[in-house]
């Protein structure tokens, strides 16, 4: 995704090494994907669904994650 569009940056984060990030994004299982601060994707998804969910927050239809 990042390689396809210069606006997208992708981080693969090792959750056990960075507990502060795991806490901040409430990572209780892996893989967990967080897009900007607005979209959470749990588990692995087929590509079509993953892209659709990853972009779901772009039109403002999904609010920020939790309190």
């Amino acid at each position: 995704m990042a390689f396809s569009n210069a606006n997208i940056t992708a981080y693969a984060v090792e959750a056990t090494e960075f507990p502060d990030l795991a806490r901040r994004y409430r990572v209780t299982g892996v893989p967990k994907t967080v897009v900007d601060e607005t979209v959470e994707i749990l588990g692995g998804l087929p590509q079509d669904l993953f892209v659709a969910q990853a972009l779901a927050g772009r039109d403002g239809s999904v609010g920020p994650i939790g309190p």
Partner: protein
Amino acid sequence: MGLLSPADQDKLRVSFNEMTSNVRVLFFTQALGCETCAHTRQILDELPALSDKIAIEEVNFVLEKEKAATYGIDRVPALALLADGVNGDARDSRIRFLGAPSGYEFISLVQALLLVGGRSSSLTDANRQKLATVDKPMTVQVFTTPT
């Protein structure tokens, strides 16, 4: 003694043969206060021996803060993958790894190296078009564990 078995090294050599362009891995590291930086160094040291298209460039996270900021790196160990051009210029792939790329993360790193090295993306045309509509910065973080 290397981390990879001779059989795995052979498999990776074959995979990396697919690469058509050079990839530079920026390795952000620091000597003190980083538990997994040395292990990351060991893993990365395996790669250039398997392909002449892979180069590792170490960046001192303490001394080169500006470079770290340029690549959005705020912790170590971290990797940024660059597609090396022929004239010494480099195109940022915007693919990053935070933490040691061991276990399954190593497989992800290999896949990323192949992609940046010229292998065609697995994205479908339809998804590529959807992603092309992203016109503002977007950050995707994928949290994983080594096992």
